[in-house]
């Protein structure tokens, strides 16, 4: 979660001007959300250990989602909706042992082949048994890909420069100060 707090000083103008500012920030946040989703997909794709022949379900499931609070004051931009992502999203990110009911297959065959799954072979998780699928019991934990943390690092590092180049501070503060003369306000825009 990244919060952007914008301090507005002074009140003396119509609230519609404030809405215009919020709209401008909203558009920029939305664009940044798209860039963040793309960045997370790239991090995942670059971190594949077993070649590029997999289904890429995880990377494909990372999309931008956008919604507003009921009163329309807070904009939320999220990347990756858990309900749309494969169940192994967490274990791939944080590392650890795979889910207990890990049914699926390796391209070269079933569980009786001694070398199945070694080297660069990728595992396809189906979630069902039979029809060539079997239960895979890993002997060692999955190493964390930390694609969430790497994306967060990227978001934080581009955040300030993005705002500086796309929404000139002088414009925001200048317009805002004509709106709210004599008082202090706080406007929040939330990302993630």
């Amino acid at each position: 979660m990244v919060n952007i707090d914008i301090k507005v000083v002074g009140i003396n103008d119509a609230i519609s001007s404030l809405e215009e500012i919020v709209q401008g920030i909203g558009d920029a946040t939305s664009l940044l959300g798209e860039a963040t989703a793309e960045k997370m997909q790239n991090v995942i794709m670059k971190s594949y250990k077993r070649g590029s022949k997999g289904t890429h379900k995880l990377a494909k499931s990372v999309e931008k989602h956008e919604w507003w609070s009921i009163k329309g004051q807070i904009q939320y931009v999220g990347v990756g909706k858990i309900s749309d992502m494969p169940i192994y999203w967490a274990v791939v990110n944080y590392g650890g042992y795979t889910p207990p009911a890990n049914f699926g297959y390796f391209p070269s065959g079933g569980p009786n082949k001694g070398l199945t799954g070694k080297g660069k072979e990728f595992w396809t998780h189906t979630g069902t048994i039979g029809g060539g699928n079997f239960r895979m019991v890993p002997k060692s934990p999955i190493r964390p890909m930390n694609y969430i943390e790497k994306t967060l690092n990227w978001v934080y590092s581009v955040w300030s420069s993005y705002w500086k180049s796309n929404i000139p501070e002088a414009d925001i503060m200048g317009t805002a100060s004509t709106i709210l003369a004599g008082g202090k306000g706080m406007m929040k825009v939330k990302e993630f």
Partner: protein
Amino acid sequence: MGSWFRRTRCIELSTFEYLKRVIENNWSGVTIVKSFTQAYDSAIPVVCIRLDETITGKLEIGATTYNSSYAIIVDIFATSDAQRLDLSDFILNQIAGTWTYSNYAHNSGRTDIVATPDGKMQMVLITEDRKVEIVENPESQDRFRHIISFWVKKF
């Protein structure tokens, strides 16, 4: 003196050594490791401290030196939810201040690592501090996990 370690390695080692020392001085029975797979070779509670990546930027346009931040990840593998919270809280408190940055090198016989203090380090941003839930019925090691990720800088 043998070969010196580069900056990134020294950042990781300095942070690791600092947190290892303060945890061992205040907790008993906690194993501190530097690689993720080692965390599964030890009995819990385990704390894994590692450098995830370097965020590199130029100090200013035309500058020849970098203004880098280093993303550190602390994985906590606790025995209970209460211990998970206590350990994460403790670690967060410890990184609030500064700690010693050291240059590390092998000694001439390459039998040991020698640390030479060379400034201070500080946490500049906490990017994550949360419980980790991997699956519904996790293995014992994964049952009470927590992740803290933060950026550090050398001053």
